[in-house]
């Protein structure tokens, strides 16, 4: 401001700028003058309209915090009641179909195209919310998490089996009806020696004719018959009653390479799945069973 000369600085006395023909505000800094270009009128109008609108809005809708929780607005509208009413609307449109699913016997749902489509739709959403985190978005599973698209069903793949598994879970201690049996830890509990485990693992792998498996040995056969056949059946046919997977096939939940098989025999145990009957209603569980069944056709 030091170079401001007194003769040009004349606050309040605006003059017309000769170049642009626009009045100045009378402000000048270092020889640079400020032109007086007011905001366009439509802009100012719009601004004031928004202000008025804004005030009206806070009166019409819940806005101001008060000691009692806030103003309610003229229409007593709030997003919570809106959500509630939308959910209620949804129930009325979906209600009839859901009631039909609820009433229909499980086997009948699939043979009615409309019910099947509805059940698959409901089931798909429930699956994405509750099951996809373990079984994958398309039910494709992962190591230790069953693939629901194939034809290998440890606890049975019929509609009723699937429903039972969803309702009560697997090794879910809080549910008495859960699938409880588990594989013993042959290694950790000292039932078999490491050497025996290696032999029986080799033997088991011959059932499935894994690419690098050798021919069966009498010793392996004997060990298998004594320790494994009771659950996994002769020649590894499996037993869905006990959740003992078939060993003769190509689907291996925990991998078919030797270290994986040895690890299973050493540690035993088994995967856990929650029982869903306390969290999902009966209709949803039915829809889920139909959906999962339709993924791989079940058995």
């Amino acid at each position, binding site marked *: 401001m030091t170079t401001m000369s007194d003769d040009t600085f004349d606050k309040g006395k605006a003059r017309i700028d000769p*170049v*642009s023909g626009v009045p100045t505000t009378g402000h000048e800094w270092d020889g640079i003058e400020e032109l007086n270009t007011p905001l366009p009128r439509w802009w100012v109008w719009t601004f004031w309209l928004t202000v008025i609108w804004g005030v009206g809005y806070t009166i019409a809708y819940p806005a101001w915090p008060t000691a009692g929780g806030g103003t309610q607005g003229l229409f007593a509208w709030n997003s919570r009641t809106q959500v509630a009413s939308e959910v209620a609307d949804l129930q009325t449109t979906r209600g009839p179909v859901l009631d039909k699913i609820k009433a229909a016997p499980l086997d009948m749902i*699939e*043979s009615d*195209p409309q019910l*099947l*489509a509805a059940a*698959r739709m409901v089931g798909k959403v429930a699956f994405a919310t509750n099951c996809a985190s373990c079984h*994958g*978005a*398309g*039910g*494709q599973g992962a190591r230790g998490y069953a*693939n629901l*698209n*194939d*034809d*290998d069903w440890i606890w049975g793949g019929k509609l009723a089996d699937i429903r039972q598994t969803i309702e009560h879970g697997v090794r879910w201690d809080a549910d008495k009806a859960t699938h409880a049996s588990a594989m013993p830890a042959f290694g950790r509990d000292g039932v078999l020696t490491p050497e025996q485990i290696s032999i029986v693992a080799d033997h088991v792998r011959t059932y499935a*004719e894994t690419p690098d498996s050798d021919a069966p040995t009498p010793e392996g056969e004997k060990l298998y018959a004594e320790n494994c056949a009771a659950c996994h059946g002769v020649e590894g046919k499996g037993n869905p009653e006990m959740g003992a997977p*078939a060993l003769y*096939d*190509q*689907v291996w939940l925990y991998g078919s390479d030797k270290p994986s098989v040895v690890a299973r025999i050493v540690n035993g145990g088994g995967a856990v799945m929650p029982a869903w009957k306390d969290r999902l209603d009966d209709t949803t569980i039915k829809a889920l069973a139909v959906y999962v*069944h*339709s*993924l*791989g*056709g079940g058995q």
Partner: protein
Amino acid sequence: MSSADAQHQLLDEPFVEAAHKVYNKKVDGQFRRIKWGIQFATLAIYYFLPFVRWHRGPDAPSQAVLVDFPHRRFYFFFIEIWPQEVYYVTGLLILAALILFLMNAVAGRIWCGYMCPQTVWTDFYMTAERWIEGDARDRMKLDEGPWTAGKIRKKLAKHFVWILIAWWTGGAWVLYFGDAPTLVYDLATFQPGVGQAYLWIGILTFTTYVFAGVMREKLCLHACPWPRIQAALTDEYALNVTYRRDRGEPRMSLKQATAARAANLPSGDCVDCGQCVAVCPTGVDIRKGAQLGCIQCGLCIDACDGVMEKIHRPTRLIAYDTEMNLKRRACGEEPIYKTFRVRTVFYAALILAIGGFMSITLATRGDMYMNVLHDRNPLTVRLKDGGARNGYTIRFANKKPETRRFVIDASGLAGAQTEVVGVAPDSKGKVVIEVGPDQTREARVLLSTRGAASSKGQAPVLFTATDAETGASVVVKDVFIWP
């Protein structure tokens, strides 16, 4: 001119011309009559088309033109478009763009001057305004004068008529989305369930009123992109409303011109009467040459022709002419008109090709439809015996008004087994799916090959749906993938 002078001159002219109200005068003539004709036709189509009936049988609506959102159908006379066929709509949009390009290549912005809804409604509004407030001079006087009772009455009447037109415009719009007579009844009697229609009528009433009543040519000048785009698409052979300055200049009064002619001095035909500017709906002075504001409506031609007739000079001092001819006349050459140029022929050929292709596909499209979607997740599944399984979601559509049975078959994969979830094969081992009249049905199809390591990589599969009665079929190709 020094650069400082040039700069000064630039500064003298405002960067943006201040907005001013256009009081355009009434005019009569050839182009005005063409404009009336087109305006009458387009408005009549718009307002009354929803009431045209078209019988389609008991299960389909009898409205000739209907956008049926709830049932996802679009009806246009004998054409019925399903959601799977929206590409016809895309095709129509492409056609519309090409037709616009062609119009532009032949005769500049005539779309703007004659057919653009903005022009048509603005003209409609101006007619109402002229009817209530009088012609340009009266309106100008009225606006300048004090607020008398008469002025207030006129203004109120004008805005009332405007809003009425706008309301009718918005009302006609919603009739395209529902059965028109029923909707009119429901709207008039405040039936429940038409709230959304009221909302749309409100929105469109408001926009029509603002666009055609308040903004008018401002919209063309400042909001519409087409003038800018067309300026890039045009060339010197395109017909444009042109002031033939070779004939008009130097302009002078009729008296001066007669004197000049007698003295063998140069004189133009333009008598500087300003009629061309007075009638222009966008306030353009066409004698300054081609400009952004001109919508090629030709009204100035009509005005100038009227003047020329009165002073007994040849008409068409202003005419649809080309930039090229202005230059040629200036050099004393004959004008040339080239409607057939690479540009126009190219656009016309494209329009014919796309239009022809669309007509053929429309005429030959089937009354059944199949859409196959391969599972993304998982792409493939290994089965117990080492075989593989792929899942597909297949949607069938039956466009006939009766229930039909489709036999589903997958071929191209030796030994593969086809299962449709929820559908048991019939006694002959065929999978048959029933689809209701005018409906679609989704089915989940599982394809499995048996036996270890049956193959590797992927192989094509053909899905076929055959009408059990007529034998008509559709085939869709997809792939089978091994783990």
